[in-house]
């Protein structure tokens, strides 16, 4: 009940402000001859104003201690309100018992008008925040860009996570204001938590109040940031989740992230959204120049499907489904832009060990599909120099586990190969089939 009455305050305050401003207006008009007859209404207006002022002050006092507003701001607003109301009463008393010079009356009116406006403004600061009512506000909405030169070198906590907090949370959880007794402006503050204790439990998303709250539905009262405030983007939520579940530590950099595509994607979206630096060089890869249109055309005319991996960064996935010429020749032409080729899909092409010699030129390759080709372990020798390779598909090739022993120490390399031994393609009976099912990872 007490809380409810307190919550009436932001509603009630508008009455005395409005009514008493009307009162001031009437007083002003009264000083002019042609409005003399207005006198009869003046008391009604003043007293309604006074009653609502008292009600506002009472509800205000109740509300003051419940909301966790900065005590300083509350103090100012509270005493301005009480002082202004008292001045109004004094003025009204004098006006009714003494005759004053018009100039004096008018200066009083102006003073009272200013006082009541300031009181209202101080209240507004409490509910809407310091910078809600300011001209610079328009520009402030344009978020200050990320200050990092190269995304790979960015520190995950300091440059990314804290940036998100600064942008979305500090207006309520910063130096000036600590809603829920929580500050998110420095690492120590974040870790020490808020009124309900720690808000981050290392490596435990389910127990971390902060993550729980940002994941809540927007309509939920506890959702952060509260609705009507600038919300977090999906990729920012993803980044915060990643940070907490990886121990919320402060030292790792973007380039240290293991191949977690979702996190890398999120960082990339984040970078695209907030950085003004125009190097959209894909994360973890050096910048490359644009490929000449003629070269591209020549390659495409061979049937290569060339798909940029992302906007502007000139890295490509090349797919050979529609290559009609011999695959060896086609690879030779493609190797003109071998630096740019990150993914190469040669599935179902008739690539043999001789054609495979061309593969050694593709040093930037990360993913390679050789499934359903004629390659054998001899052809695979050509891949030795490709250090970044992290995916190799050899399904339905005449290759067995022994041939792949070279790769046994490459833990970062994901291999897909005919794991049904050499006879896989002839298996017919069900017992072996169940064996296969068991073998599958």
């Amino acid at each position, binding site marked *: 009940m007490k809380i409810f009455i307190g919550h009436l305050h932001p509603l009630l305050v508008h009455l005395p402000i409005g009514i008493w401003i009307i009162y001031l207006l009437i007083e002003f008009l009264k000083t002019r001859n042609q409005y003399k007859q207005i006198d009869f209404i003046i008391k009604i207006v003043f007293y309604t104003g006074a009653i609502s002022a008292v009600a506002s002050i009472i509800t205000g006092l109740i509300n003051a201690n419940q909301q966790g507003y900065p005590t300083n701001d509350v103090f100012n607003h509270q005493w301005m309100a009480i002082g202004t109301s008292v001045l109004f009463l004094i003025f009204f008393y004098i006006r009714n018992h003494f005759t004053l010079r018009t100039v004096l009356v008018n200066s009083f009116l102006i003073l009272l008008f200013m006082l009541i406006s300031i009181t209202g403004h101080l209240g507004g600061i409490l509910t809407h925040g310091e910078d809600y009512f300011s001209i610079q506000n328009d520009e402030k909405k344009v978020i200050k860009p990320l200050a990092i030169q190269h995304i790979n070198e960015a520190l995950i906590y300091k440059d990314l996570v804290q940036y998100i907090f600064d942008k979305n949370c500090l207006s309520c959880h910063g130096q000036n204001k600590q809603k829920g007794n929580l500050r998110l402006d420095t690492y120590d503050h974040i870790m020490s938590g808020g009124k309900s204790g720690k808000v981050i439990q290392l490596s435990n998303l389910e127990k971390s109040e902060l993550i729980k709250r940002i*994941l809540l539905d927007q309509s939920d009262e506890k959702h952060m940031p509260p609705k009507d405030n600038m919300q977090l983007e*999906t990729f920012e*939520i993803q980044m915060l989740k990643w940070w907490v579940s990886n121990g919320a530590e402060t030292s790792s950099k973007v380039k240290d992230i293991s191949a977690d*595509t*979702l996190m*890398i*994607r999120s960082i*990339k*979206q984040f970078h695209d959204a907030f950085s003004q630096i125009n190097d959209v060089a894909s994360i973890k890869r050096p910048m490359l120049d644009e490929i000449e*249109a003629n070269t591209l055309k020549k390659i495409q005319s061979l049937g290569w*499907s*060339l*798909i*940029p*991996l*992302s*906007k502007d960064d000139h890295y490509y996935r090349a*797919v050979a*489904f*529609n290559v009609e010429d011999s695959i060896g020749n086609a690879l030779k032409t493609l190797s003109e832009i071998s630096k740019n080729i990150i993914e190469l*899909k040669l*599935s*179902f092409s008739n690539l043999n060990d001789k054609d495979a010699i061309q593969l050694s030129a593709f040093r930037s390759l990360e993913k390679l599909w050789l*499934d359903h080709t004629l390659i054998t372990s001899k052809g695979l020798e050509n891949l030795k120099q490709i250090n970044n390779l992290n*995916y190799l*598909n050899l*399904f339905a090739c005449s290759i067995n586990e022994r041939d792949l022993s070279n790769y046994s120490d490459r833990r970062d390399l*994901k291999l*897909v190969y005919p*794991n*049904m031994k050499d006879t*896989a*393609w*002839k*298996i*017919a009976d*069900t017992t*072996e*089939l169940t064996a*296969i*099912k068991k073998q*599958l*990872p």
Partner: protein
Amino acid sequence: MKSNNIHQEAYRHNLSYNTRRHFLRECRTGMGMLALGSLLDGCNFFSNAENELLAKNPLAAKPSPLLGKAKSVIFLHMAGAPSQLEMFDYKPELQKMDGMDCPDSFIQGKKFAFIRGVPKLLGPQASFKQYGESGIWLSNHMQHFQSVVDEVSLLKAVSTDQFNHAPAQLLMHCGTPRLGRPSMGSWVTYGLGSENSNLPGFVVLTSGGRNPDAGKSVWGSGFLPSVYQGVQCRSEGDPVLFLKDPNGYDRDLRKSSIETINKVNELSYEEYKDPEILSRISQYEMAFKMQIAVPDVMNISDEPAYIHELYGTKPGKESFANNVLLARKLVEKGVRFVQLFDWGWDSHGTDPGTALDQGFVEKCRENDQAVSALLIDLKQRGLLDETLVVWGGEFGRTPMQENRDGKQNSFKGRDHHSDAFCMWMAGAGIKKGFTYGETDPIGYNPIEGKVTVHDIQATILQQLGFDHTAFTYPFQGRNFRLTDVFGKVIDPIIS
């Protein structure tokens, strides 16, 4: 001229200024502008190299705006709506209440397709157990699925707002229950093109003896260019009708006639520079290549025996299992979106075929083996990492036994239910062995983790690398999107 009052006088006066010249002028500029508008656009006034390339091959592969995990989608639609209560959503409480009258609170103010009056509750017509490390509940109709259950994210509280087949299917695939919007597959091929131009980018396969109720609109291209519509392939006879050359017309003759036609077309392109001519040329070429490529990929008979064993396929027949195997073959060859419809899940209980303890069990058996095989097979080929598999119907079925027109049906069956049903997704960055959403003790309403059809669409688009709110197409003066103004990505199921 005498006028009654000053207004009329002013009016007349004003009219006299509007002479025939005005009319002519308006006609001249107005019509002229209209013509100019279409002329500029028609000649591709603002054209650039990219446009030209697209005109040449509208299906050319394009990058996704965001990094996407999925390269292809296989959407398995069980048309007619399978009963979640006999497959995934285990409700022991409902068993206890079997045969009791349905409480009023569930039926008041609700509309059902067939249920009238007060129906009786119907307990699960299957036994359930938990499987896999994830401990997902599965019914005894899902014997094979046990082995792959740790690959999927099961959504147990999907809801739709349509309770009849056609509108619900339209909503599922086109984002609205009404006709005229592009289907999901069309959106995706429009946005990403295809990596193999010898095959259509969007292929539709149907089984169960019937097309879905919503007809071909569920794979239509709506207001998108018609090259993006789904191509329905048949698993029996000619895969694509009218693709084969007529008897006595050999491939060389076809080739030389197409070459001649294209030469003529190139001449007129030189003259008019209309990109439509380029696209016509490329379509002739594409059709020519498809004549070979399509029958080749649609032929399952040279798959090894163990594959047939795994899927339960029999070459030469039209069956769901054959279609599932085809879906794998198509995706393997770079087809972007494969849409399967399997009719026969409308288990009302009006005849043995739609009885939960007869026809339905048969459907489950066939579906179970093929679908589980698909996941195993995609996985062993390394395709599951970049293929998103989606399984579901257009809505669910009621916890009550259907009483058509107030009379208990002769077999055990359930009516259409739109508030809660199950779907699952697997592959391409979807969490493995995960359940999301929960329904009340009788499976009537979601109580947690409710998702809508638009949420499913948003999630599919996100896995393909689209922000569903930004992926739009301008039509009739506004930007349209698949999810209209709805949809929220189901983050909890994304790994």
